[in-house]
């Protein structure tokens, strides 16, 4: 069984976010990166668990530059068997999905695992576009998954509840919290990761269909206004005119 886990790199959660070049570019200065937690803690670990039970191999895949190799090595240290990096800037979801779909098709992948979103852009797009391109079933926001080797029974988080779906391989899944528990790589895993293959391949067809124009920062917290409890009219006026909530 071939399990493909798509991993991406995101700024570390406490990174200070700012933009440059007329707010059109994320300022990477001084930013430290981590593997997207949904990919690492849930998607990757669940894939490794399935491999441990059913056999096969786990391939970690990333679309990105050579500086991403460290997070790929981390995936190998946690327990992926091999890795592939598509050597290109991941500049749109469509482009990334195309690379994944292409690789999945050529390598007879049984299950494609993604995180439910990356914690930086929160797009939740790559997994669904990939499924569409491969014409495969897609189960999003998976928080629990049982698998018997052919059929998966998956619980997915929906607004205010849980939905249970059944699907046969091959399929695409996006992982949310609960699908597995974080595994911290140990020193043995880190040393073994050096001997596992990390293949670097060229991208296929680059035709981004959208373009990023600019970013806007959310408004900072405003100062609290104190209003005399006697002065109800003023409170109503402010809620109406300034806060625009009534």
């Amino acid at each position, binding site marked *: 069984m071939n399990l493909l886990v798509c991993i991406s790199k995101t700024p570390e959660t*406490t990174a200070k976010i700012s933009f440059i070049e007329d707010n059109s570019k994320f300022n990477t200065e001084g930013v*430290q990166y981590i593997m997207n937690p949904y990919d690492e803690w849930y998607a990757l670990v669940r894939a490794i668990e399935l491999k441990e039970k059913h056999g096969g191999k786990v391939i970690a895949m990333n679309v990105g530059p050579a500086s991403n*190799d*460290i997070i790929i*090595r*981390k995936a190998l*240290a946690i327990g992926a068997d091999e890795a592939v990096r598509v050597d290109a800037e991941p500049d749109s979801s469509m482009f990334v999905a195309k690379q994944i779909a292409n690789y999945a098709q050529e390598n007879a992948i049984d299950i494609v695992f993604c995180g439910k979103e990356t914690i930086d852009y929160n797009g939740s797009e790559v997994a669904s576009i990939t499924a569409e391109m491969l014409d495969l079933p897609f189960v999003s926001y998976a928080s629990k998954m049982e698998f018997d080797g052919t059929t998966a029974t998956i619980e997915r988080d929906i607004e205010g509840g849980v939905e249970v779906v059944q699907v046969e391989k091959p399929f695409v899944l996006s992982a949310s919290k609960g699908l597995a528990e*974080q595994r*911290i*790589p*140990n*020193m*043995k895993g*880190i*040393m073994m*990761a*050096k001997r596992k293959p990390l293949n670097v391949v060229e991208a296929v067809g680059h035709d981004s269909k959208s373009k990023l124009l600019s970013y806007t920062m959310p408004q900072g917290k405003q100062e609290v206004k104190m209003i005399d409890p006697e002065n109800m009219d003023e409170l109503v006026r402010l809620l109406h005119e300034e806060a625009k909530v009534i």
Partner: protein
Amino acid sequence: MGASTLESMINKSKVDKYNHHDYYGIDDLLTEDHLLARDAVRDWVKQEVSPIIENYSEKAECPTHLFKGLAEIGAYGPSLPTKYGGGGMDEIAYGIIMQELERGDSGIRSMASVQGSLVMYPIYRYASEEQKMKYLPKLGSGEFIGCFGLTEPDHGSNPAGMVTNIKDDGDAYILNGAKMWITNSPVADLAVVWAKDEEGKIRGMVVESGWKGFSAPEIHGKLSLRASITGELVFEDVRVPKENVFPEIRGLKGPLSCLSKARYGISWGAIGAALDCYDSALRYSQERVQFGKPIGQFQLTQKKLAEMITEITKAQLLAWRLGSLANEGKASPSQISMAKRNNVAMALDIAREARQIHGGMGITNEYPCMRHMMNLETVLTYEGTHDIHLLITGYDVTGLNAFS
């Protein structure tokens, strides 16, 4: 302030918000293995150590369940060969692992230092192949816990004066004497013990707990390194099979070579404690408002913080260079002494300054500074006291021995 208010302030659920500080971009000097090792141990500490450490430290209880966890993450003998239960990594990786463990607590780092550098290392270096295979894999996996007995009640800084001794008795030696201040001893399965033979030469040996005449009572009342268990080793006519005595090594250079290894790790470990104090103080200085400003805006607070990061950066560079020398097999014991002495004193100074920045809250267990400060008093003393290391440097530069 009412008792309940203070309690609620102190018992707020503890989230370890630690962020790494790398003012001089020293990360660029590190390899992928080093960075992965560091992040892994940091995650492990945040998950396993930070949530419980204040509690164990307060109760003066050793979280013995962490011995297994330390083995699983690979903290025992990371730079020893994998065949002998080690990690096959380099000396910088070993240092970084110690740094991250001590960022959590000096006692936790001590649990790992003793097992790796003072127990596994001498067995790896001096025991017969058979003994290596008998003990090392089980020590590496945490199935066995070890301790290291050099210090005696009357011989601390001067271990050459030791009185613990062995006498030949056919197929075994008879061991008599007592060791004091031994980390891990009450919970250890075996002890690496240094004792004088009938010619007065210092010999090393592995003594298993449970052997007749061997006991290891706990030492109580420590106000420092409270989460690490410390005890004595008492030997009353203990029969030590001859194969358990290291065949070749004679003299003080046996134990000193182990101490070099452990002191090297401490010179990195202390940076971890300093970083944790600095990190906490920096965050507090931005959150705490007095006179209408965050206290970090006052010049005197800035002086403290600026000096702290300057000293940390110097210590990081010292440790990195020492690590590079160690990787080439060129780090001399005197160079290790300099780094141990400098970095531990640096960390203790920073713990004290950081404690002040936290004001009254700094004396509570809501913040880590006071615990680090108390721990570092031990770190300043064990593995060669602050002053003894100074005399080692003094001897090295003058060629004149202050000890004789």
